[in-house]
């Protein structure tokens, strides 16, 4: 395993910038919080320090300016202002670009100019440095270490050895400060030394020996006197007093940092987890073949081993799942910045509330949720929330509220995005839908159906296309992305009160619990999370429902699809056919199959590129006997199964 500190730094820099950004956003709401100021400063400081270590010089130089600005805030020299926070936020973006290595210098310069302006606006102050010394032909020195030098890890003997290495040294010890035995503190360093060093030695070289103790010790370094004049030791020991006073003020400031959970952590590249996942997947497949083999014979020993392996493989899979889970806070955190920017762009006051951030979801799912959520949130801020004046007129608080919440329900995670804006304008949706020919003028449509129109391609209700919400490539893309995650999207809206969009996403993408069914000769897997119930399609009902394909289930009409017909199996139906009722959101559809074989844990394999466009299948899996079963795409089938007539009947 090769170790690359530079690669590690890139990852770390990303995290640091994330922390800095979160800190800045918190700070923006609470400008006086020194704990936050310190946290941001520390992030920038580490970024600069490590950046310089690993050759990111431009990054280090750029970050240095921001760090200095924050250092001044830390020292109370400059006030934290919203402008400063905004500039440093944009500086953070530039730092990210610098880490990635594609940052135009002009951008950086522009930000630095803004930074300077923001700092100037917030304060005044200054400082000045000092410089150093020349060279000579031999030296006399006289020195005494601080009493606690040895306790603090300095070894005087090592220092003397270093002096000897510099040149010809004559060293004499002074014992004048050693007290009587009863007053002696044994671990204090009480000796002093006088030393003559002959040779072409620079003053810096000598100072270098005493590098770490220089400031605290008594030392006199004099050029060698030409005619043996004795030089008295002139103590120069002060220096630390002022330093201490300066820092005491800022170190006392409270630490807002939550204690991190203790314990060891190992950082692993995501692709290794994916590899491991693949292996576990193959193991699960091999194990199910083994268990099939074991159960077909009568070898009890084999069967017991097979069961043991089944248990272990199951546990391993579960552990693997947990490894890939990350809290949604990593996702939600990124939206605080978005809201901040949107508030500036739209001129609206927007507040973001997040809930259920500890809910854990598969890493891949999290990554793929980002874009759809950005879109939804943009829409809410842009179309949903009103300008402050309109809100006040409507009796609402001035600042609009966006609420992001997540919670787990069974094998799914529910993410809801709520705004308290004006709600979706039904009239406008209707007008637009009619104009697009999605519905006939005057046609009666249900509430859900009408709101569902916003997911149609090319549908945008904003009278003017704004900068924020894009150009009508919108909710349809969102819907497709969510469905590609085997999830569903649902919208509710109350005029004048706001809208809620709910996403239901499976916790993981790689393995699903499935229901294995047989249709004709072929076997198929139905994701168990979509299965509502299974019932028998009696012969008479089968005959009665010919042509209509609707059954009544608990006083509800449910359309069904005969998979045998759909897949054109050309086989005779079994005598006792089964209906598997599946659903997404509020929609239900029955799937008629020949036989329900049972639960089957399924490792999803992607379809080959050639078959990627085949609707009604979401992927494939390998069964215990080595044969392949296709996994049904429930979203597609549900859509396919919703005939117009049923909707009308259901709508009454």
């Amino acid at each position: 395993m090769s170790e690359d500190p530079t690669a590690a730094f890139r990852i770390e820099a990303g995290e640091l910038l994330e922390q800095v950004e979160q800190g800045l956003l918190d700070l923006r709401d609470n400008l006086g919080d020194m704990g936050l100021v310190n946290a941001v400063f520390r992030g920038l400081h580490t970024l600069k320090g490590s950046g310089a270590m690993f050759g990111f010089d431009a990054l280090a130089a750029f970050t240095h300016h921001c760090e200095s600005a924050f250092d001044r805030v830390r020292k109370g020299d400059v006030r934290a202002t919203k402008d400063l926070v905004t500039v440093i936020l944009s500086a953070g973006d530039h730092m990210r670009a610098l880490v990635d290595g594609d940052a135009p210098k002009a951008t950086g310069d522009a930000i630095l100019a803004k930074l300077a302006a923001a700092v100037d606006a917030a304060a005044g102050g200054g400082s000045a440095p000092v410089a150093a010394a020349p060279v000579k032909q031999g030296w006399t020195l006289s020195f005494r270490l601080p009493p606690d030098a040895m306790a603090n890890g300095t070894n005087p003997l090592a220092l003397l050895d270093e002096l000897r290495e510099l040149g010809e040294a004559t060293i004499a010890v002074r014992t004048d400060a050693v007290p009587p035995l009863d007053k002696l503190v044994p671990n204090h360093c009480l000796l002093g030394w006088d030393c003559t060093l002959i040779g072409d030695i620079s003053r810096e070289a000598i100072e270098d020996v005493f590098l770490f103790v220089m400031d605290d010790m008594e030392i006199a370094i004099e050029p060698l006197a030409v005619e043996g004049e004795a030089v008295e030791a002139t103590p120069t020991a002060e220096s630390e007093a002022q330093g201490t006073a300066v820092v005491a003020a800022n170190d006392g400031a409270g630490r807002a940092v939550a204690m991190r959970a203790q314990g060891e952590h190992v950082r692993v590249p995501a692709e290794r987890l994916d590899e491991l996942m693949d292996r576990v997947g193959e193991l699960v497949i091999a194990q199910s073949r083994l268990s099939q083999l074991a159960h077909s014979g009568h070898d009890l020993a084999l069967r017991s081993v097979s069961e043991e392996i089944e248990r272990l493989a199951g546990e391993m899979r579960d552990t693997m799942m947990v490894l890939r889970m990350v809290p949604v806070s990593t996702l939600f955190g990124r939206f605080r910045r978005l809201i901040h920017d949107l508030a500036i762009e739209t001129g609206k006051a927007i507040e973001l509330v997040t809930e259920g951030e500890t809910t854990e979801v598969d890493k891949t799912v999290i990554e793929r949720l980002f874009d759809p959520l950005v879109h939804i949130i943009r829409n809410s801020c842009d179309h949903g929330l009103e300008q402050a004046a309109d809100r006040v007129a409507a009796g609402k608080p001035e600042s609009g509220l966006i609420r992001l919440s997540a919670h787990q329900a069974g094998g799914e995670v529910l993410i809801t995005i709520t705004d308290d804006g004006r709600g979706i304008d039904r009239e406008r949706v209707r007008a637009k839908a009619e104009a697009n020919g999605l519905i006939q003028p005057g046609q009666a449509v249900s509430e859900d159906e009408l709101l569902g129109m916003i997911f149609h391609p090319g549908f945008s209700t904003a009278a003017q296309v704004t900068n924020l919400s894009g150009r009508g490539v919108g909710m349809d893309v969102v819907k497709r992305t969510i469905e590609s995650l085997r999830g569903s999207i649902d919208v509710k809206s109350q005029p004048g009160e706001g809208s809620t969009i709910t996403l239901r996403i499976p916790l993981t993408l790689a393995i699903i619990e499935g229901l294995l069914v047989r249709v004709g000769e072929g076997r198929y897997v139905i994701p168990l999370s979509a299965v509502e119930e299974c019932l028998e399609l009696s012969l008479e009902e089968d005959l009665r429902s010919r042509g209509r394909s609707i059954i009544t289930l608990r006083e509800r009409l449910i359309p069904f699809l005969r998979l045998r017909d759909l897949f054109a199996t050309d086989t005779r139906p079994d005598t006792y056919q089964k209906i598997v009722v599946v659903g997404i959101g509020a929609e239900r559809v029955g799937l008629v199959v020949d036989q329900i074989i049972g639960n089957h844990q399924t490792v999803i394999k992607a379809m080959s590129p050639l078959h990627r466009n085949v609707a009604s299948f979401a992927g494939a899996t390998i069964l215990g006997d080595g044969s392949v079963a296709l996994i049904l795409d429930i979203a597609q089938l549900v859509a396919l199964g919703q005939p117009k007539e049923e909707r009308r009947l259901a709508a009454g």
Partner: protein
Amino acid sequence: MTASILTVDDSASLRMAIRIALSGAGYAVTEAEDGVEGLSKATATRFDLIVTDLNMPNMDGLTMIKKLREQPSQAGIPIIFLTTESDDAMKAQAKAAGATGWLVKPFQPEQLIRVAQKVLAR
């Protein structure tokens, strides 16, 4: 006998760089990611040298150095801290807390090794 070194830093990349440099020079390196962990590891095992960052979450290097020096068993163990040139005040404080020496970031691996050799002499 191989000298053992504890490196305390919240930056994983920096710890890695320090470990690579020092283990390359023949030292046995242990890592800790903040002052709390550093303190507990240093208390549990006696190291020959501790190299610590100052700016860290949970417990900063300064506090850790103070707490270490409060323990009689930790007297005389060299502690090197990492600092930046802009941090002179911190430097004074760290020394007052009982640090042996420091290293200014950014540093070259050779500088680190030299400092380690310097304070580990004998």
